[in-house]
């Protein structure tokens, strides 16, 4: 591992070289505090955008669930409630490790930081693994719209009997795959981002410990967690007691 403190020359020449082990001050900023606040505000705004990004799907979901409650409830019976719950635990756990990583970066606890970032990545990957098991099961049950969707045997009678709209039944799965798929894409990006942070921290690339960068990454990670916190009850727990 190289221990050279680094950076000014490695990044771009001509920028002011900060005192050793201080974060680099980009030329457009006046001081480190301003720089930190700008980064944080930027990420928070991006997350507001993300809320509306998922918001389009949430609105569609709200419209279809409120106009066809019965179809949506029936379709949601095919969700794997247990696996979803397990995934929620995993993702909440990853948020804890991410929060601990942020804490370690602020305390400049280098070894802890690497451990916690690694843990976060492992938990994130675990989540994707469980999700993949779910998707596989749904594929085998012929529940993937646009691929092999068929209305399950046990629902056909009910749909026939109550004259439900089979399109709306399928609609639940369209929204389910779109929402969880979009969430999974975000998670993959999150894992990659955490991986880059871990690698750069390991190489001691950050002057000043990279606390801001890791905190910003953390904000993104926690947002992914929050999305799941809403998706889980919205998709899995609609009508489990009956």
């Amino acid at each position: 591992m190289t221990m050279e403190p680094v950076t000014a020359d490695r990044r771009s020449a001509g920028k002011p070289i900060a005192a050793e082990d201080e974060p680099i001050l980009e030329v457009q900023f006046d001081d480190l505090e301003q720089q930190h606040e700008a980064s944080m505000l930027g990420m928070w705004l991006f997350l507001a955008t993300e809320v509306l990004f998922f918001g389009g799907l949430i609105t569609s979901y709200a419209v279809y669930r409120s106009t066809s409650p019965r179809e949506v409830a029936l379709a949601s019976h095919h969700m794997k409630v247990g696996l979803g719950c397990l995934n929620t635990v995993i993702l909440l756990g990853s948020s804890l490790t991410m929060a601990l990583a942020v804490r370690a970066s602020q305390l400049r606890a280098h070894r802890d930081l690497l451990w916690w970032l690694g843990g976060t990545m492992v938990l994130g990957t675990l989540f994707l693994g469980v999700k993949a098991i779910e998707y596989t099961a749904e594929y085998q049950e012929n529940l993937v719209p646009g691929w092999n969707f068929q209305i399950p045997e046990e629902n056909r009678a009910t749909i026939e009997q109550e004259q439900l709209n089979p399109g709306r039944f399928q609609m639940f799965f369209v929204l389910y795959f779109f929402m969880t798929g979009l969430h999974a894409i975000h998670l993959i990006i999150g894992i990659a981002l955490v991986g880059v942070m871990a690698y750069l921290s390991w190489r001691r690339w950050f002057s000043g410990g990279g606390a801001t960068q890791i905190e910003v990454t953390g904000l993104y990670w926690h947002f992914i967690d929050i999305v799941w916190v809403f998706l889980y009850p919205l998709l899995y727990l609609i009508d489990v007691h009956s």
Partner: protein
Amino acid sequence: MWNFPLFPDQASISARQVDALYFFELCMAAFFTILIFILIVSFAVRYRRGTQVDRSHPPVVSRWMEVIWIGVPLFLGLTMFTWGAILYVRDYEPPPGALEVYVVGKQWMWYVQHAEGRAEINELHVPLGQAIKLTMTSQDVIHSFYIPAFRVKQDVVPGRYTSLWFAPMKVGRYHLFCAEYCGTNHSGMVGWVSVMEPVEFQQWLSQAGTGPSVAEQGERLFVQYHCAGCHQGSQIVHAPRLEGVYGRPVPIQQGNEVHFTLADERYLRDSVLEPKREVVAGYQPLMPSFKDQISEQDLLKIIAYIKSIGAKEATR
């Protein structure tokens, strides 16, 4: 060359009402545009650089002026809203006894079906002075049924019914347009609305080539699609009789509760396409769905038949 129109025909009652609102708003728009124009020009001339005028202490803020130009637009806006909303509600709530006409839009033509049986394509014949109610749907994409001379327009949406009514007040031929972009020949999806004297209209309706009325056609389809087997005096299957159903509330079983729903076009359509969703209390959900089995045109005819027997007293 110079005799081109600048204003559309006023051929319905609502046209007159809409135009009154339009002139009110037009005057307001003109007033404010001209006001701003005059102010800009007169200030620009009076205070152009080099003129000897008093420029001391130019005001930079004035509360009461701001209040005025917040308050006046707000008041005028709410006036326009209220006036417009009242006419809007009137535009869509048909008076009782309106003549029924059914419209199906498809790429790129209008199929019009009169209750009395005559069907036409890209033409709509209506009698003068009579309220006409259109019930419309589309077979493919969204279209929009638009008669400028009557100031009415309504999108025609696949998968559901929309409606429109008007009362023509002037004999003549008027444009019928599709106003919602619907593909290649959107601009060819046009036709004519002919407003005729009631007598002429009756003649037109009964002209040669006219088949049976829609209700009669619907009655035939009612048998053809085997509706009659259960809904008309069957001893084997217990199904509700349909005489006198239209326009009345029907009891609907939902779980253990019964609630009432108005038997309108929406209910009848859903009952054919998704019969098990709203089952009349006291009956078994036995009827199969006719979804994808019946065309929109046939469905309209069957509904017209059910409506035609709506007036008759139910006989048990």
